[in-house]
């Protein structure tokens, strides 16, 4: 039997309680080890899709993580397998120290003692923040906070890393440093972003979502080179940026 896809989303539809239909039947398959960018204009349904991947929202259709259906009895394991890094690190970092925050997830999943300490250390090492373990997240720069937010999720040892606008509000250097960290991680990755050059740098494949459905799926370079496609979905490459 062949290995199940890292992520399988099949005809996923969802309407918010106020009646707003955010997803109209999204289908997406991600193979283990793939890095996929999820592109789309504001209100396309990208974040709604992300919240379905770990069962925070549940709509109609099918979502499976490495063959495990996202359903109530599996939620704990699903949330361990799918690590979501939210857009604003201040929403993610809520403990008094960086170390406590990075330990929060794995402790919830049952790790204790030396094993927990080792996991925290490795996650902080992976993002280059081991020297800041005892500081308050409040006293870190924006780029450092973003890397610590990433570490809080890496510490859970997820199979899929889901990043919501990872480059938002970062200065160029912090943006580059984060890209280096992400490229150094050997994990399946789903990256929601408006930052098209970042998507090109980090993700060989891109999926374009608009109006609650997948409108394009292919190599990132091909999608970004299709000016008509981008224009039809309110996406633009930055000034001076060309893909020939």
């Amino acid at each position: 039997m062949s290995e199940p896809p890292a992520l399988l989303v099949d005809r996923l539809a969802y309407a918010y309680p106020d009646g707003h239909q955010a997803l109209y039947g999204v289908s997406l398959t991600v193979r283990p080890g793939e890095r996929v960018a999820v592109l789309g204009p504001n209100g396309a349904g990208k974040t709604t899709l992300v919240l379905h991947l770990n069962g925070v929202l549940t709509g109609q259709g099918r979502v499976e993580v490495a063959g495990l259906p996202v359903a109530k009895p599996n939620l704990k394991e699903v949330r361990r397998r799918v690590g979501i890094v939210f857009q604003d690190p201040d929403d993610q970092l809520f403990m008094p120290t960086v170390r406590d925050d990075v330990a929060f997830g794995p402790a919830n999943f049952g790790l204790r003692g030396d094993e927990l300490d080792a996991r925290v250390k490795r996650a902080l090492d992976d993002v280059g923040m081991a020297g800041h373990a005892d500081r308050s997240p409040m006293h870190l720069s924006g780029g450092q906070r973003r890397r610590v937010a990433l570490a809080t999720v890496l510490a859970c040892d997820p199979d899929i890393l889901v990043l919501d606008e990872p480059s938002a509000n970062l200065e160029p250097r912090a943006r580059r440093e984060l890209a280096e960290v992400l490229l150094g991680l050997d994990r399946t990755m789903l990256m929601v972003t408006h930052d098209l050059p970042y998507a090109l740098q980090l993700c060989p494949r891109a999926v374009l979502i608009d109006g609650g459905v997948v409108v394009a799926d292919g190599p990132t370079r091909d999608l970004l080179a299709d000016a008509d496609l981008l224009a039809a979905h309110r996406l633009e490459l930055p000034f001076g940026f060309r893909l020939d």
Partner: protein
Amino acid sequence: MSAGHAHPLHRPGDSPVHRLAPQVKIVAAVSAVLCVVSTPRERFWAFGVYFVLLCAVWAIARIPPGWLAPRALIEAPFVVLALVFPFVAGGPTVAFLGITVSEHGLLSGWNILAKGTLGVLASLTLAATTSPGELIVGLQRLRVPNMVVTIATLMMRYLEVIGDEARRMRLARISRGHDPRFLWQVGATARGVGTLFVRSYERGERVHLAMVSRGWTGAMPDHGGPAGRAAWLAGLAPTVLAAVVLGIAL
């Protein structure tokens, strides 16, 4: 757990008092304050003994009195009240330092001054030797309900975030010429507070989402173990002495 949160009331250190499990320190401080407030006000010597006990704890914790003194100023309004009492209370009078004052008022003032000062100093000693994060862990180990512990944790972290947000909103207001000097000009500030409330509520929802995504099910993880018998004995020793003093004083 180490301190990483710079707090004006916390004095990081590595003394035996600092190393003591936070739940022991919380129980010791609260029960010591109970002993102090239960002591009859006429037993002047007992308050002296309590103060000596506190001094001993400071010596072990290596907290200089000069560090505590400015922080104890929070008690100032009560000191003023205590000083006013002897002059405004009725009943029999007595000469004190050459001034005729009410005997009942003098004792009441002394009661407030002695018990208030000792209470503030005991609380400051707890805060100085225990970081805010440790205090929360201590409360959790003392079986304070999970919801209260979670709210306290979030409040500690987000007061600064919300404070920053409020400062940015104020800057944006005054950058557009807002200059509230009188009560009838605070409309915009009030609306700003309303907006801040809604934003904080929305942030609360996002924080909750992020916590749930990392497997949170309602209890904050605690990485330490329970305190041993030796820690309880050592930590409660000053309080036991205070209880003995109270027993004699009663």
